[in-house]
């Protein structure tokens, strides 16, 4: 039992630590704005071609009903806060 638990913990730690992208992107995933990194500078608002981003409470908020996943905001963000 203890051995299994230890194996599971080691597996999880190794998995979290390797960052090789084994976690496949999920079909239903949507863009996330890291609220701790975003400062609301608005660079993403300017480059969005779908008018899908607004600044609310000094943070970027992406409207999932308009976003077309082109990724321009991901590239232009100076703080890499969108992924």
């Amino acid at each position: 039992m203890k051995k299994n638990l230890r194996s599971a913990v080691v597996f999880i730690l190794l998995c979290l630590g390797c960052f090789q992208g084994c976690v496949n992107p999920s079909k239903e995933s949507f863009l996330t704005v890291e609220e701790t990194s975003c400062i609301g500078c608005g660079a993403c608002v300017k480059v969005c071609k779908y008018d899908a981003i607004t600044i609310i409470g000094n943070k970027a908020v992406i409207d999932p009903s308009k976003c077309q996943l082109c990724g321009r905001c991901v590239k232009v963000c100076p703080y890499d806060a969108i992924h």
Partner: protein
Amino acid sequence: MKQAAVLAIFFLAAPLFADYQFEFKGYDVLGESRSGSGVYKSNAGLLYGVFNATLPLSPAWDILLSEELDDVLRLSYDGPAANPVDRISPFSEKKLPSSNNVAAGLRFTGLGTLSLSFKNMEYWDALPIYPEFLQTNYVSADPNYVWSGDMVKRQSRNNINAYWLIPISDFSVLADINYFGLNYSLDQGGANINTFTDTVFGSWSGTYQDLWSRFSLGWAIDPAFNLSAGVLNKSDLNDNSKYDLHRYTVQMKGNQVTLGDNNFTWSLSGRWYESEQMKENGFAVGPGALLYARDVFTLDRGLFLKGSMSLEVGHNLYKERFEFAFRKAWENESSVETGYFTNQGGLFPTQGLYLRTKNYLTPRFSVSTDSKSVYEGPEGFYSKLINPDGIRFIKAIGAIEGAFSISKHFEFLGGVDYTYYNSMAFEDTDFPSRGGVYLGVRTWVQ
């Protein structure tokens, strides 16, 4: 340029304000993008200016002013190209917009903090946008023309905001309501069946409006632990409820908990999305959870090791982000920070390395450097737009800035920066590589 004149007037009037921040920079930017055999270059003089200030009217009332002129993202290909035929870039998407953002507001501090503000953003050289949500069927076309497409461009964006934060003992109530109105122009294109020429046979303008409202209730059980629940609603005001959005959240948060040499912050949130359009687009609606943790470990005086992680899970959804950083700061405010971050499981799985330094060579003169490289792995791109195979991007940034202060809160600055983007021909998500040199001033009082 009149916006620069407005900034100059604000700067001269700065002593009237209780607190203010002013920064103005003049850039000379060189850009380059490659496509096939063509090399597209530009050289433009650009401006950046920002002014934020508070003008007290009475102990309870303040006027808030803000002006931001941002020309720096702009880049247009009107310079010489390798091939004279290619003097104009075929990629209109590479033309980035300039903007002027002006805001004024009134703040009341009494029963909590209440503020009302109006913000206007003007777009120049705006990108064409392709909003399927706009009502583009304005008129019936002339029978001599065959419809060949609409061109929609943003003209301006208006925002009216009402914000009220009320602390009552250990509780806090927040109401934040935002109206957004996007003014756009629409050119309807057509091909003349008699002359076989394309033309614009009609130009219209319109406004797309939506209302965002955010309400939350917080309970500080302990200075370092609180609970909150909130709702974020978007209402489409164009009679199209398909684009409405509702997000409900509950959150537990441990804030700045000190455990020995560790400073630990964590949060656990549950959220629920409801949106007809999200469902139609295939995004995860319904329940989801987000775990965030950050620890700052003090190794020695001024020497810190930082680590943070966030996990987002939901139905068919698993995203993770990790960041590790190391920071050393000295008593004269010089510092060096380096770190690594990675995002996995999302649509844009990026990894990046960064190194930032600030070195006070003398008490008045400092040199800052900033370098970063970001890579997006091709395996993670799932795009609805075009064939995603092999798409990835690399971004590398290098910058050096020198600042010379003539008083505690006034400094002259100058610097060079360069941003590299790898080129992906015919990708509308492409950005040009570009370098710039700038001079400016920065002043602030708090």
